[in-house]
């Protein structure tokens, strides 16, 4: 069944474009720093140089190599994105499924909380929390971002599970003496799997964009290099107004390419799977 589900995806041109772009950037992030062994933090006297054979993407005000920064930045941004997505998915899945399975007051309370978080301007709260943390590791940033993007997903999971748990096949499994755990694993999880995957992809986007936002406002990770930090330095040191395009254009392109490719993956999955599900 799994291969049956995957195959139509690879017949979809848009999906192939999306996944190729994403894999390309993923490889840049993973392999870039391995093969391009320039220290992104090393300061040299070659500052603010436009792209050349020595520095393919030029250097910044401190003479650091932009290409090396880009590779490390992609790596960190993806890392933060993935981590934030994992956190959001876990919270969302737990809240959504508890709500759906326990019903009653548990459901009422969890949904009230979900709605409150949903209406809370999450970016603002994230900024606030980050502002109080003096040292912000990549992980801390991911946690801050992950804590606020789950509500819509929890609601969707709840709705899906609610409809699944009133399906006859779930009753039939219960009537076949299934324990709750077995029921969840065999009948409930597979139904929400595609949706959960699609949401996970969008959460990565949220994480990457969120990191860039936090960084620009001065609240990004305090160590390491991310795409957002590159942009922040460029803004701080007036790279834009001084026309040092090689410094702020590449990280932006990387952000747009990664998030757009993930977006394409998610929407094409929706296109491919939804009509199928409706037919059944």
């Amino acid at each position, binding site marked *: 069944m799994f291969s049956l589900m995957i195959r139509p995806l690879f017949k979809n041109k848009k999906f192939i474009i999306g996944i190729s772009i994403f894999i390309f950037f993923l490889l840049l992030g993973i392999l870039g720093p391995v093969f391009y062994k320039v220290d992104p933090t090393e300061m040299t006297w070659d500052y603010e140089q436009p792209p050349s054979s020595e520095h393919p993407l030029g250097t910044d005000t401190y003479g650091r190599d932009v290409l090396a920064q880009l590779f490390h930045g992609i790596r960190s941004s993806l890392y933060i994105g993935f981590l934030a997505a994992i956190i959001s998915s876990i919270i969302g899945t737990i809240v959504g499924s508890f709500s759906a399975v326990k019903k009653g007051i548990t459901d009422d309370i969890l949904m009230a909380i979900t709605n409150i978080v949903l209406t809370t301007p999450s970016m*603002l709260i994230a900024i606030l929390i980050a502002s109080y943390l003096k040292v912000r590791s990549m992980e801390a940033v991911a946690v801050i971002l992950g804590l606020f993007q789950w509500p819509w997903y929890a609601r969707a999971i709840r709705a899906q599970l609610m409809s699944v748990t009133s399906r006859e096949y779930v009753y039939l499994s219960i009537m076949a003496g299934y324990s709750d755990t077995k029921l969840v694993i065999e009948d409930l999880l597979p139904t929400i799997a595609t949706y959960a995957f699609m949401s996970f992809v969008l959460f990565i986007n949220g994480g990457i964009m969120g990191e860039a*936002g936090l960084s620009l406002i001065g609240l990004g990770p305090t160590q390491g290099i991310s795409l957002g930090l590159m942009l922040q330095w460029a803004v701080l040191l007036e790279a834009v107004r001084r026309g040092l395009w090689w410094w702020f254009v590449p990280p932006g392109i990387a952000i747009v390419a990664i998030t*757009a490719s993930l977006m394409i993956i998610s929407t094409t999955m929706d296109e491919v799977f939804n009509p199928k599900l409706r037919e059944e």
Partner: protein
Amino acid sequence: MTFKPMLKFLLRRFVFLLVTYIVATTIVFILPRIIPGNPLAQMLSNLSRVAQANPEAIRAAEKTLMEEFGVDKPILVQYGQFILKALKGDLGTSISYYPRKVIDLIVPVIPWTLVLLLPATLVAWILGNTLGAMAAYRRNTWIDKGVLTAALIVSQIPYYWLGMIFIFLFGVKLGWLPVQGAYSQGTIPSFSWEFFVDALKHYIMPFASIVLSAMGGWAIGMRVMVINELGSDYALFSEYLGMKDKRIFKYAFRNSLLPQITGLALNLGTVLGGSLITEIVFNYPGTGYLLFKALTTLDYPMIQGIFVILIASVYLANFLVDFLYAWIDPRIRLGQEE
């Protein structure tokens, strides 16, 4: 016609938003007190760095700060004081601009943010929805595919990066528009024609960058929604009755707008966050820029103050959107929601 259900709906939304707002402000209050590493102590130690190096002034500031945060009292009392003061409009004293009051610093920058944010958000919403609806109406034509692809990519461009590209292209390379600020340095805001033209020139790029990158998302959502509505039973029946295509399309558009309004409400926070950063990129003298300054100087009373106001405005806007929604959708007005 009775408006009771509508009032009931609005009352319920109001209570919900109030509760949520209280939760949010409680977070604002509690954070500095629970975060490890005691930010309060850090704040005090920072004082000497940021305030003028006058020891007396530092001590005075320290005293105000201690009083305002009321660290020596039980936390519930502190909380009560915080709320009471906030209700009176007293948001404490700024550190970096000591001894000016936070509220006095925030009030003058708010109009700048509103002038940028409100029109940009509305224009993006209207343009995006129109484009999305057009794409749906001409489904599977090149217009549809073009709009969809463009929207998909544009919606992924962060406002602020688009802003940077604009500054570089139109400001630095082409020199058409000023590269920063809300008006030229040296001019004093006034209601003169010259000032208006000057401000407008500064306004175009930040405005356009927000509009462009925000409208893609609306377009995508609207397109899907209108396509669904056009395939719904009432659209079919209207067609069978010989209703004009344009009219059916208007129906679909109208019914798709309703969820888009909810979407607008839910997105206000994100939109606000994005435009704050846009302000930073453009050195635009709005709330975002003030917040940025406060963050870099660790002016916590100011940060708190800004957040109390920003969050309140998000909820206020939310409530206005609810009002609009109830006004447009008869199902809510007449008490048959969800």
